[in-house]
């Protein structure tokens, strides 16, 4: 019995000792490998940095001639640098990568069975801003893994080719979606040339797609699409989309948005969310001709409608703030004539007006302090 016990203990000691030795050996080997890679990468890294710092004017052929092993050691660091630069330095770095066949390899890796490789390849192609890669990256928009789709969307945004807009919009329609906010941001990165596609997509059967396109048009400052957006505001069948249309008409800030936004404020039977968004948008629009319509909402039964109307008036500057003061004075006058003076219970309209004016006073004081400072 004792012999068996001793044998078990001995076997366990051997296993523990063996495992420890193996762990130490792996760590030592790994450290040696890291040191070797760092030593190999040091020369190419320095040469690459100097080349980029010189905007690619000197040292290009030397970089292309670096042996493959040394280049592969330096490549991860260089790829990381690619995402942090633009302008001549970025172009210089890209020229080296192209000559070293990095783009060709990345295009091949887009078809890899490994999702990590596909995502990494998409990231590299995006950082290289390689327009030729756009069709292949668009194919990844329907990848079965969300991480790959997200990296592909970001890469398309970095490349900024408006030809990708309709593929991106089509990808929004799928069940395995891409995040709306990311899609909006990327569509904006595609630039004003994507406006026609975005405007056409306002007829898309899916509400989510229409809302994303509205946000992208607003952020792009697509003033040419105002009439189209105004039509969405009045005719769309989904409330969230109409609310998005109102908000983006405000962002676009053109006079053509004034009439449809004012019309959306009344009658009071319209959805509160829509009337609230329209009131807020009129403040963003900056048209003082909206003052009477907004002032009329200060005693609205819906708290948020009256609240947004008051703050929209505040943002409209002196004309809007005069209207807020007028409401307070009217109430004070009524209280005086009723003989209750300062003991009068404030109306909700005057309450909203006071709050908005107080905020305006704080903003003015802060601005004054910043100017003096």
């Amino acid at each position, binding site marked *: 019995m004792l012999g068996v016990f001793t044998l078990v203990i001995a076997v366990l000691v051997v296993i523990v000792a063996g495992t420890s030795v193996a762990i130490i050996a792996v760590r030592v080997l790994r450290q040696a490998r890291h040191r070797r890679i760092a030593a190999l990468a040091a020369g190419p*890294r320095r040469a690459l*940095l*100097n080349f*980029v*710092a010189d*905007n690619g004017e000197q040292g290009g052929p030397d970089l292309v001639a670096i042996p493959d092993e040394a280049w592969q050691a330096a490549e991860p*660091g260089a790829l*990381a*640098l690619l*995402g*942090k*630069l*633009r*302008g*001549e*330095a*970025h172009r210089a770095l890209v020229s080296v990568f192209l000559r070293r066949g990095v783009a060709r390899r990345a295009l091949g890796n887009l078809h890899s069975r490994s999702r990590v490789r596909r995502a990494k390849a998409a990231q590299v192609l995006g950082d290289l801003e390689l327009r030729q890669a756009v069709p292949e990256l668009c194919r990844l928009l329907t990848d079965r893994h969300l991480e790959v789709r997200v990296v592909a969307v970001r890469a398309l945004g970095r490349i900024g080719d408006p030809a990708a807009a309709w593929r991106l919009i089509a990808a929004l329609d799928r069940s395995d979606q891409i995040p709306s906010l990311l899609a909006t941001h990327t569509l904006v990165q595609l630039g004003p040339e994507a406006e026609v596609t975005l405007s056409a997509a306002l007829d898309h059967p899916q509400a989510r797609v229409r809302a994303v396109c509205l946000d992208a048009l607003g952020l792009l400052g697509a003033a040419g699409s105002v009439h189209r957006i105004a039509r969405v505001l009045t005719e769309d069948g989904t409330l969230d989309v109409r609310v998005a249309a109102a908000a983006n008409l405000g962002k676009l800030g053109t006079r053509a948005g004034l009439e449809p936004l004012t019309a959306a404020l009344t009658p009071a039977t319209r959805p509160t969310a829509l009337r609230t968004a329209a009131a807020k948008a009129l403040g963003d629009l900056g048209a003082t001709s909206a003052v009477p319509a907004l002032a009329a909402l200060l005693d609205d039964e819906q708290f948020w409608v009256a609240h947004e109307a008051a703050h929209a008036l505040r943002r409209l500057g002196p004309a809007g703030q005069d209207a807020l003061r007028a409401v307070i004075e009217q109430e004070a006058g009524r209280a005086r004539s009723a003989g209750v003076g300062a003991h009068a219970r404030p109306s909700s309209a005057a309450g909203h007006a006071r709050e908005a004016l107080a905020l305006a006073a704080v903003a003015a004081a802060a601005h004054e302090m910043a100017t003096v400072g």
Partner: protein
Amino acid sequence: MSNILLVEDDPDIRHLVSYRLTRAGFTVTEAADGVTALHEARGEPPDLIILDVRMPRMSGLEVCRELRAGARTALVPIIMLTARARQQDLEQAYAAGATDYVVKPFSPRELVDRVETVLARVTG
């Protein structure tokens, strides 16, 4: 010749920017983190500071506030260099006392142009 304190934790970016600034005729002192940057700036206040926002030990925003609170460094122009490009990030940087703001990905040439513009504005 103006002295620039370059505070950036990425050694590649530091090398790149330092090289461009030196070629443009500036004298560059480098720091890899916020604590070293504060030490350098308080010892010998530079003419301008380029400050990364995300750094180990102390963020760029904290460094900026500390510098603005110090008598010798309160007026040194600070250009923030960061990948954060949202409106609230800009507001935070300016509230902390930044003079200018450069977003990554950035062009080293543009950064040098900004440095020259800010220095010209300050020296008037």
